[in-house]
């Protein structure tokens, strides 16, 4: 069955996430939807799967327009979606998860579904134990469960949103071979990704989106540089930073292990020197998040020692690290960085660490004004932070960094920013290095890591599997290391 999207628009208030998208998806093929973060891929797929309502446009199946407004209606029509964050129930068992949403009233029919589960698993070579709680599964296994469940509903169009984020290379192989099998069975598989290598490895045809519009289509074999052009417009320029020679030790981790995140962190030994910029590469949630939180005192290690400029910091809390000159900036801006409901001025008033009973509102207001000017924020001191755009929120967060920090720990500092803002952020961060600070940052963009760092640590499954100077590596080698291959 051929699926056709015709002039799809989706507006969130005044943001046009999808701005007139049309495409035809042929059956029996694996169709890639490519685009960088924020290109409108996820929105489009959520519309297709019935989770979001489109502002205007038509979806046609074999030429007949489809009308549905919920995921359930979509799946009754044979369209199912695997979401980026698996939508499941961690406390329940695999089998219970498999059963939620299946028809039925009182009777459980567990044996029937157990059999069905086993049959489907066999057909695409998945090996899941139906009785384990989902909370103990890896992301890859949770995806497998969700695919099995969708298949059991008779899905003919399967949409996968960034399925390779956070899963191991072995699981990726299992996933890809299953998807190829589904394609052979005549199903329509749609793979949404911002990773070229996934698309090249799997897809028969690809559509590229940028800023809510279709910028091109291509059949396999793909011309990589042409795809890049369609994704980014002009290929990204890599500016070379002036090198600062590393000085004395700032942070030292010796055999540190801690639980947390998806994988935890085990047996990590790293030294960060003065003036260094270290990029943490790896699939999201491979231990970088835990590393940054240990280095900032938010997670206490269960083994190993943490030293800051020679002083042991074990057992100290985040606020001690803060006073010692460590600044941490989390990835989720409105959840962990800024405070919804407070104005920009109030945020600067919070930053004012001088003693005294009263808030110095005048000072805070003028600080806000000057910072807004210096950091080129589009907004005003009396704006509430949640009314600012993502890029401007990031700029506000950057302006919170202390004037003379010792160590900056930044989690995905440029996520969701356009290229221009990315360059602006790094120009600003470089100034910190010149004044003697060290920077450790994580990023899901390899290009950014190669552009900004002096040294790169590659995380895989909770371990550092590569520690290399930038000059001595290449994006190919790093890409392989991120997927777990160090040889």
């Amino acid at each position, binding site marked *: 069955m051929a699926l056709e999207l015709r002039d799809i628009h989706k507006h969130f208030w005044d943001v046009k996430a999808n701005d007139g998208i049309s495409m035809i998806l042929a059956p029996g093929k694996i169709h890639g939807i490519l685009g960088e973060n924020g290109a409108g891929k996820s929105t489009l797929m959520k519309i297709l799967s019935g989770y*979001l309502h489109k502002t205007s446009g038509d979806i046609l199946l074999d030429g007949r327009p489809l009308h549905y407004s919920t*995921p359930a209606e979509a799946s*009754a029509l044979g369209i199912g979606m695997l979401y980026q964050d698996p*939508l499941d*129930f961690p406390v329940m068992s695999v089998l219970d998860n498999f059963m*939620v949403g299946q028809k039925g009233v009182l009777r459980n029919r567990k044996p029937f579904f157990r059999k069905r589960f086993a049959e489907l698993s066999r057909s695409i070579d998945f090996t899941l134990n139906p009785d384990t709680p989902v909370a103990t599964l890896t992301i890859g296994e949770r995806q497998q469960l969700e695919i099995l469940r969708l298949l059991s509903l008779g899905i003919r169009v399967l949409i996968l949103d960034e399925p390779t984020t956070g899963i191991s290379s072995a699981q990726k192989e299992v996933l890809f071979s299953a998807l190829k099998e589904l394609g052979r069975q005549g199903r329509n598989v749609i793979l949404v990704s911002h990773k070229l290598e996934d698309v090249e490895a799997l897809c028969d045809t690809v559509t590229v989106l940028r800023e809510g519009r279709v910028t091109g289509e291509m059949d396999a074999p793909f011309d990589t540089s042409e795809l890049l052009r369609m994704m980014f417009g002009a290929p990204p320029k890599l500016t070379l930073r002036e090198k600062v020679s590393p000085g004395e030790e700032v942070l030292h981790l010796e055999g540190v292990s801690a639980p947390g995140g998806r994988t935890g962190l085990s047996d990590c030994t790293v030294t960060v020197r003065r003036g260094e910029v270290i990029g943490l590469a790896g699939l999201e949630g491979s231990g970088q998040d835990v590393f940054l939180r240990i280095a900032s005192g938010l997670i206490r290690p269960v083994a190993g020692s943490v030293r800051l400029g020679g002083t042991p910091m074990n057992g100290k809390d985040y606020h001690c690290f803060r006073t010692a000159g460590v600044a941490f900036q989390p990835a989720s801006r409105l959840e962990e960085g800024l405070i919804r409901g407070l104005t920009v001025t109030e945020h600067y008033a919070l930053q004012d660490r001088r003693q005294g009973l009263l808030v110095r509102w005048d000072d805070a207001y003028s600080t806000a004004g000057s910072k807004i000017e210096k950091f080129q924020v589009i907004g005003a001191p009396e704006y509430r932070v949640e009314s600012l755009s993502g890029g401007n929120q990031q700029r506000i967060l950057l302006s919170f960094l202390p004037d003379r920090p010792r160590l900056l720990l930044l989690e995905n500092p440029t996520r969701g920013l356009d290229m221009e803002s990315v360059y602006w952020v790094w120009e600003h961060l470089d100034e910190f290095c010149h004044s003697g600070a060290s920077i450790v940052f994580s990023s899901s963009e390899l290009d950014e890591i190669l552009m900004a760092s002096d040294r790169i640590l590659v995380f895989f499954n909770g371990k550092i599997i590569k520690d290399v100077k930038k000059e001595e590596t290449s994006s190919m080698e790093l890409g392989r290391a991120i997927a777990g291959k160090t040889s």
Partner: protein
Amino acid sequence: MSDFHVTILLASVIAAAAPILLATLGETITEKSGIINLSLDGTILLSAMCAFVIALKTDNILLGFVAASLVGALVAGMVAFFSIYLKQSQVAVGFVLTLMTRDLAYFIGSPYSRMPGPQVGPMPVPFLSEIPFFGDVLFRHNLPVYFSMVMIGVAWWYVYKTRLGLRLRSVGENPEASYARGINPNRVQMVYALCGGLLVGLAGATFSLCIKPGWGQPQGAEGTGWIALALVIFGGWNPVKAALGAYLFAFLQVMSIYFQGWLPSIPAQVFQVAPFPLMIFILVIMFFAQRESFVRWAKDKPVVRAVIRALSSAAPSSLGRRYSEE
């Protein structure tokens, strides 16, 4: 103490626990779907008043029970409506309703204070009540008490062993995922708020028509709703464990009467309020038992570990959170 006393004690515990049990089970079901109905304390009073007045006026006990359960469902339905359709805080609305329904009960019920009225008579189960000891403890009660005992099993079976129960739990855990799977979380929450409210209403009727017959100000049911709310946490959102909690609480209540007799030097007020701090104490213990350091310490202590496992619990992940599409 002679055997005779133990029988009476246990039988009175079973009877006294009935309304607490019904309210706790009702609230457990409601909270499993992700809605907190904080209005229990007032709802129980209002439904107790309605049950008594209706039964008195119509001279029909059954109608009293029906009215009470409808009142319970109505109040719970308001909490759910405010949360689902008006996006208001469940805690705020529940709290206001607690006070409002209590005053409403006192206001409308005041002409019926201290009036003699109908009450449910005992109904020993044939044959079973002849069993020595157990017959006396379990099978010489009235219908609502039997109903409360049966409901423990029914609630457990429904929540954990049926497809509808699975749907109920899935909404409480992750409404977004449930929606993606074709379940309407709003409707599920509304339905189980109403079902839970129904049981809470029955709890009220059980007070005014069986356990503490009649109406007055105070009625004697004051505080039960709060206890039921705490018991839901104590029971880890599991109907069977919550029921055990209800029996434990009823046991303490009954025992306080005995203690008063045995230890006249300790004032009666201490025994009356003792269960409440005890409840807090247990909640604190449960909190500490779930701490990592404590779990490590208990690793090589099988008894402690077993106790922790029995006490450990997790609230439905989206409890109290408002769900909205898009």
